[in-house]
């Protein structure tokens, strides 16, 4: 009765409506105050910076004093109008690249992003070829 295509299409339409509607629900809360917004932006940037005295935690998660103070620096710079990129660049200039919890995506570092994707694509190709070949009818 329902073709696969029709089902897929209606699913997408429904989801789209849900997201738009859901977005409206979220947007209601936004005008609450700049301080909440600043906190959110601070958390977002702080989650990408590594705490220098901890083991791999971000300065957002770390309870150490230095992490708290670094969060303060992030907050002040964001409040002064700097972009998240500029704030991160500031810390890279002070501590080096390892202060970023995720390697910057250029040059040699691209390998760590590209190789997993290449692996999935290559693996999928292998599986598709294998399944095709294995399910070919046996030569009579």
């Amino acid at each position, binding site marked *: 009765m329902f073709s*696969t295509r029709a*089902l897929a299409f209606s*699913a997408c339409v*429904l*989801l789209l*409506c*849900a*997201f738009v*509607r*859901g*977005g409206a*629900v*979220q947007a209601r809360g936004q005008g609450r105050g700049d301080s909440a917004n600043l906190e959110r932006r601070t958390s977002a940037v702080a*989650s*990408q910076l*590594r705490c220098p005295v901890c*083991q*791999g*935690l*971000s300065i957002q*998660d*770390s*309870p*150490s004093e230095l992490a708290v103070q670094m969060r303060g620096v992030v907050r002040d710079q964001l409040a002064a109008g700097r972009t998240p990129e500029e704030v991160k660049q500031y810390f890279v200039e002070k501590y*080096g*690249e*390892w*202060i*970023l*919890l*995720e*390697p910057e995506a250029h040059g*040699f*570092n691209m*390998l*760590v*992003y*590209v*190789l*997993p994707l*290449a*692996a*999935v694509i290559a*693996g*999928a190709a*292998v*599986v598709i*070829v*294998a*399944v*095709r*070949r*294995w*399910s070919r009818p*046996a030569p009579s």
Partner: protein
Amino acid sequence: MTRLVGYDALAVALAVALFGVLAAAFAARRGEAALGALVRGSVFTLFGLTSVAVLAMVFALVSHDFSISYVAQVGSRSTPLFFTIISLWGALEGSILFWVWVLSLWAALVVWRNREISGRLIPYTGIVLLGISAFFLILLVGPANPFGLVTPVPSDGPGPNPLLQNHVLMAVHPPLLYLGYVGMSVPFAFAIAALISGDARQDRWLRLTRRWTLLAWGFLTAAIVAGMWWSYEVLGWGGYWAWDPVENASFLPWLTATAFLHSVMVQERRGMLRLWNVNLIVSTYALTILGTFLTRSGVLSSVHAFTTGTIGYYFLAFIAVVLLVSLVLVAGHSESLRGEGRLDAPIARETVFLLNNLFLTAFMFTVLLGTLFPLVAEAVRGVKVSVGEPFFNRMTLPLCAALLFLMGVGPALPWRRSDLAQARAKLLLPGGVALVVAVLSAVLLTRNAYAVAAFAFAAFAIVCNVREYWLGAAARRRAHGEAPATALVNLIAANRRRYGGYLAHIGVVAIALGVAASSAFRKEHDATLKRGEKMSVAGFELQLDSLWGREEPQRAVVGATLRLMHDGREVDRLTPRMNFYRTQDQPVPTPAVRSRLWGDLYLNLMAFEQDGSSATIRAITEPLVPWIWIGGGIVCLGALVALSGPARKRVPVHETTGPEREPSPLPLPELEPARTA
């Protein structure tokens, strides 16, 4: 006296292990019975000796014999008895001693359970395990000697690392981890033995291996979940997984072992993927040794790191040997392992399993690459980079989503053959439920696409797996007229592997939901409270009742008592604490966690005034976190159910027959992933 007993037991154990390996070469010529007896004798003796050594160490710890180096390192008169005993595995030397004991235990169990089986497979397996034990015994007799002599004898010791004294889960996580981790030596030994003895083309060894792998996998799953729970309850940041290198090290073999547990089913039914499965087994073991190396060599800094030293070089040599032996044997036999591949139809459960293996292997590759990349980047560019949580979350979330989806599709599709129309009919209901869940969560809960996708896929997988129980029980009721509960129980009993597997899927879905909810809906709130002041959290009010201090033998404890109030009435009392150990300058937190089925309220004492007038509290609401621990339990229950089935399978095993085929178009599956493109 104790020291000599312990050390000599280890020295003799090393001699026995080496003797067993060498003498086996001669015994092999004298026939299988002699070989089998020799190996069994060596393995049992080894187990006896390592047990003596462990008992000696426990005795030394409990009796505070500070003349023994390990006791002087981790012992203390002021540590409670419980933590004194479990400090056996708290530092490097003791952990290796414990490792060797667990290894000898597995070896003894394997040769004893399979003592009736004829042929060379079991003795060779025993020899491989003896060889591995020999390596660890060399460490114990040499650079990692726990029974060293300390003169002059100190009167007291520093005690174990405070982080290891804070929680009872520290008694649970390491033993489970060792049982699982070391247990992966067993399938590896079986694989090497099968390759050497020429048994690899038969499937008998695989049938034996599968159950041991499942048992080790169950322990490893429990260990990982227990580790997550421990770090959640102890470390104070409200998280349970930080993609720390050593967390990754325990996770990597779990991924390949899970892939194996699935693809082995394809091998049993269709005789395919033989070479791939051997690769998976060998990779799993290589990853466990890599993990041990990373923990103990100081190559990567991590919360787990033990002391560094020359021991890294020993492990490096061992990894080299393991890798070389495995690669040479597997590649050398690769042609004889290839079988004829035959699928009845592309849309069937077999294909789903292939995809499952694809995603699990890609997952393993991604995590491995991320863990080792800082080292690679330093080698190539000379610059240190960090690869942390944002990277791993970003790269693995799509894979997790795909795996959740497959966890539903797999049970829904039959073996051998199906077609698009049939598949669509079976997936219509779960798909519809997933869509409804997606729409509802997008409207009511969050606009976070990842969370919505997680809930949708989880719903999909739950419906598919639960439906299998429903349909199976319904069929039994129709056929035998049983009551619903009886039908369900009999259904599971008759097909434990299958329904244990579905149960494990349900457990994984529960974990996924717990992770998704606690990440997407987590709320954090810091406040500094004076006595009597309140902060509001998640519909409750938290009032600081008192700030107190207490002296204990090994530490000073500062705690805040908070009253949890709802509508003005006190509902609960929570006391987050800070522990100041004499040996550390940073305090160790003990957060207060109030667990309910729908989520946790997590309180951490961040700071306080010396005069006790105020305290800074961090309150975190973590929805659905208990589902992670419960889900872990369900997965282990599923493994138990699957294991409890009879050893002999009723599904016909595909024995290899027929002439050698020309090499298949599949490239040789890679063990080593970090190849430049």
